[in-house]
């Protein structure tokens, strides 16, 4: 009889400087690997046409993703449905590579009848979860591509008095699938007082309707005061009132991104003009990793748990069917095994489809 180890935990405590072992280099070792591999981030933008979504994305990432875009006129938009369009751009800064994917949702909220206009969007998010789930459960997990949506910026028009029914319904349809960050768009049409009132109103309504927007994680107790203060200001400032711009103007002797009006110049990166800097810092410089974590640990896990439960309950009702996957002996990983694994993966996908068809048939029968 062989016993597995009885584990006891001891705290040996801090090692003194003299007794340097060297595992303090671990974060550097991880760091080096990450820099080599690079990161990815998928950001979705949603809101009606003309809210400044594209401009904001360009301003945030200093790119021009929409160079060849053609805007449709009103007549062309009558029959337009909500589309999902992906733009991918590789950004590199200080040796760090980011593969940024922007998921655009043109057509959202533009029709006369916008009933369930968010359905293509929720479907898209679910599809990415499903793809990931399949990849994660498959045999070959070497190069899984993570296309899950890490964050959704939702643009609320500044013209109204708070959330409109479509805003509420959209956010409620998505708040358990993706991190939602609501924004007040085109905030340069509001005075500071109007902004404050609108923000308060929106926060109230978010509470009232039980909408779960992305929550910034709590500050660690051992963070310095300055950090804690910034964090507090950030939280009190939501929803962020943003302005974007693709043009450079001359303001206060400097060339800055801004919008030129007869009555003055709006500077995008001026914190007293709008919350653009706060949004950018939060989205990219301090919370990007957390956004990904919450997507993986909460939204995806919820999806996965739900999915498994649905599948197993259906399986219990199904009659047993022959598994078409042949079992073959495995040899050490090599080209042949890779092919085999690929083959089995495809079989799995076919089986998944079969299973779905059967589920559909059962569902139809029950109807």
């Amino acid at each position, binding site marked *: 009889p*062989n016993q*597995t*180890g*009885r*584990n*006891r*935990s*001891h*705290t040996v405590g801090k*090692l003194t400087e003299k*007794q340097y*072992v*060297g595992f*303090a*280099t*671990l974060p550097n*070792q*991880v760091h080096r*690997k990450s820099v080599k591999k690079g*990161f990815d981030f998928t950001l979705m933008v949603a809101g009606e046409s003309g809210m400044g979504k594209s401009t904001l994305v360009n301003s945030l990432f200093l790119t*021009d993703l929409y*160079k060849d875009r053609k805007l449709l006129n009103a007549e062309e938009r009558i029959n337009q449905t909500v589309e999902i369009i992906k733009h991918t751009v590789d*950004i*590199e*800064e*200080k*040796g*760090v590579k980011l593969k940024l994917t922007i998921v655009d949702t043109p057509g959202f909220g533009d029709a006369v009848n916008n009933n369930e206009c968010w359905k293509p969007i929720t479907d898209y998010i679910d599809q990415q979860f499903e793809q990931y789930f399949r990849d994660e459960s498959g045999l070959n*997990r*070497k190069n899984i591509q993570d296309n899950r949506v890490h964050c959704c910026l939702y643009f609320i028009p500044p013209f109204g008095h708070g959330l409109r029914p479509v805003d509420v319904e959209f956010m409620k349809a998505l708040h358990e699938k993706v991190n939602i960050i609501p924004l007040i768009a085109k905030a340069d049409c509001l005075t500071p007082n109007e902004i404050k009132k609108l923000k308060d109103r929106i926060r109230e309504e978010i509470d009232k309707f039980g909408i779960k927007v992305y929550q910034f994680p709590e500050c*660690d107790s051992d963070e310095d005061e300055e950090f804690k203060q910034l964090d507090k200001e950030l939280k009190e400032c939501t929803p962020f009132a943003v302005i974007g*711009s*693709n*043009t*450079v103007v*001359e303001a206060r002797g400097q060339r800055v*991104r801004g*919008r*030129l009006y007869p009555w003055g110049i709006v500077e995008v990166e001026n914190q007293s003009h709008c919350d653009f800097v706060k949004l950018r*810092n939060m989205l*990219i*410089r301090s919370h990007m*990793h*957390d956004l990904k974590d919450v997507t993986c640990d909460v939204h995806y*896990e919820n999806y996965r*748990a739900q999915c*498994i*439960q649905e*599948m*197993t309950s259906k399986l219990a009702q*199904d009659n047993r069917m*022959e*598994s078409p*996957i042949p*079992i073959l*002996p*495995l*040899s050490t990983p090599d080209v042949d095994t890779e092919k085999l694994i690929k083959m089995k993966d495809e079989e*799995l996908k076919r*089986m998944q489809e079969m299973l779905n068809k059967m589920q559909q048939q059962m569902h139809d029968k029950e109807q």
Partner: protein
Amino acid sequence: FCLLQQCLGTHEVSCDLYMVASSTEPQPQAKGEKTPISDTSYVGIDAILEQMRRKAMKQGFEFNVMVVGQSGLGKSTLMNTLFKSKVSRKSVQPNVEERIPKTVEIKSVSHDVEEKGVRMKLTVIDTPGFGDQINNENCWQPIMKFINDQYETYLQEEININRKKRIPDTRVHCCIYFIPPTGHCLRPLDVEFMRHLSKVVNIVPVIAKADTLTLEERDSFKKTIREELRANGIDVYPQKEFDEDAEDRMINDKIREMIPFAVVGSDQEYQVNGKRILGRKTKWGTIEVENIAHCEFAYLRDLLIRTHMQNIKDITCSIHYETYRVRRLNESNILFTSNPPDHPAVQPKANGQPEEQPATPQPNGVAAQHEALSHEM
């Protein structure tokens, strides 16, 4: 800062500063300037590294190392020397009599250590009884089983419906195999063990108690060992096939020319040339453990801890564990996209979790890599 790096002549890769300069066609939204934008201000995506580091520091790291070798080869002492504290099993149970167990036992001891704000849960897994019996046939099997059991535990947690955010990692990241300093060649037991285990775990072979070998004897012994490993198709860490890129290959090739490291361990300090150093004092001189002119302990420490620790863990996770997982999923069709086979041992539980062990248990616990799987569909 790192001996091994200095020896290999490598240096930290310096990251060049790349700026993204974007120029866009102006959208005529405002009257006035229509100049194209050429921002040289920066987005700030490199901050994600700092975010990751923060998170890693908060979470801490785990490292599980197993030591295998006959009684008396200095395994416990070497562990204590490596981690500069009493982390071995013996140090934790000081009153237990030294006796050779009748079968191979597996004993784990965990420690929470911290250094410069980095916290680590270090687990040292000892295997007393290995190679100590009269008949040592298959004495590697309990060890193989233990390693596979850890993979199994992780797999079960991973396929759970409600799984933990951070699955506790008890998988053996590295197995240090102690070769007695005979100076001749590998013994059949050494070859047997490494041949079987190198397929499931990262093996780092070391020449134990190397202070009985002169430098020439050491070099020729190493050469013989390397040849025998090659002749028997044994891939020890760092394995050639897992080199990621040319830079890795270059570094690892140099390491592969130096292994197995000839080590001496000690937890006694002595005064040498005005400094206090770890060593072994004999009538003919004092062996300084961390002096690379005396033994290769420092190289082992650098490899295991300062430069390749993360890589060792990565290979365990992304290769050894994945290999195990693929085999297990094939064996028992646990995949949720298929129905369970008509096999009584593998009924899924109500929540979709399969029973513990499928099919007929093999005499060595889990089927070895090349055996055909246990049942047909």
